């Protein structure tokens, strides 16, 4: 994958997060709706096991709900990108250290 393609792909993801995220449907998702309909939604209402820094996709401390969602979306998109690149690179490097070049026996090689 060339740098240009990577930037286009990342740009598209950032655009989705920045432009479209505030307009997502506010309706509950499938599981949440069923939990409500069948009376077990309350079970998920307790204190979460860990307190997440940006709960419910809203950057804390920002008045405008839409802006808070946009910033949270962009932050999450960048974090997911960085983490996946890092873990992907690590998984490959570990293999290379073991003396087997992945490309020689690998069955794909993305251009």
């Amino acid at each position, binding site marked *: *994958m060339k740098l240009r*393609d*990577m930037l286009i*792909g990342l740009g*598209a*993801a950032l655009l*989705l*997060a920045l432009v479209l*995220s505030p307009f*997502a*449907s*506010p*309706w*509950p*998702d*499938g*599981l949440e*709706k*069923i*939990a409500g*309909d*069948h009376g*077990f939604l309350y*079970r*998920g209402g*307790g204190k*979460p*096991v*860990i*307190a*997440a820094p*940006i*709960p419910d*996709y809203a950057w804390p401390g920002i008045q405008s709900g839409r802006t808070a*969602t946009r910033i*949270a979306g962009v932050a*999450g*998109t*960048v*974090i*997911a*990108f960085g*983490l*996946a*690149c890092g*873990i*992907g690179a690590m*998984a*490959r490097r*570990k*293999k290379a250290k073991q003396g087997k070049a*992945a*490309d020689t*026996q*690998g*069955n*794909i*090689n*993305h*251009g």
Partner: protein
Amino acid sequence: MHIPDGFLAARVWGPLWILGVGGIWCCLRQVGRSLGERAVPLMGVMAAFVFAAQMLNFPVAGGTSGHLLGGVLAAVLLGPWAGGVVISIVLVVQCLIFQDGGLTALGANIVNMSLIGSVLGYGFYAAVRGGSSGRGRILTATAVAAWCSVVLASAACACELALSGTSPLRVALPAMVAVHALIGIGEAIITCLVISFVLKVRPDLVYRSEGIRT
């Protein structure tokens, strides 16, 4: 379909944590073995895209919404192993940073959406695609796999709820499968749109397993 804390009993989420971690470990080993260096940025782009797309809930019938799971999308481009890793990364980010999906339920969510949604979803794709490299065949396989992956993930989720004593299987299973049969149509449409675009501009980015020559 992200299960929050409190929906699953410890006797259910405990083993699913082990299964989820074990599954991801296997995926990572395969990624190290099979993925070319230049595919690493594609993993990053897919994680970014799936994260952003999962924020975009679309309305389905009856005051319910759904969003892309992206398991088959990631697997069609990256193969099942890197696909599974990418979806798991998205789930971990959602859980730890955005409180979407509980920490206790993270193993279950990884099993449902990553191992079933991406790794098993790729199995459906490969089965329908066969050795073909025709555009129509690839898109048909993508659509079938995308729909199946969402419906199967929802069925697994229903079983986990039932085993936890949260909701009886005769209630949870038909309800989850019915809603996700609709959400799965959205999944199939979005996945096909993206794959169709990639086939047009960069067909070489579609994952080629051994035996398929494009």
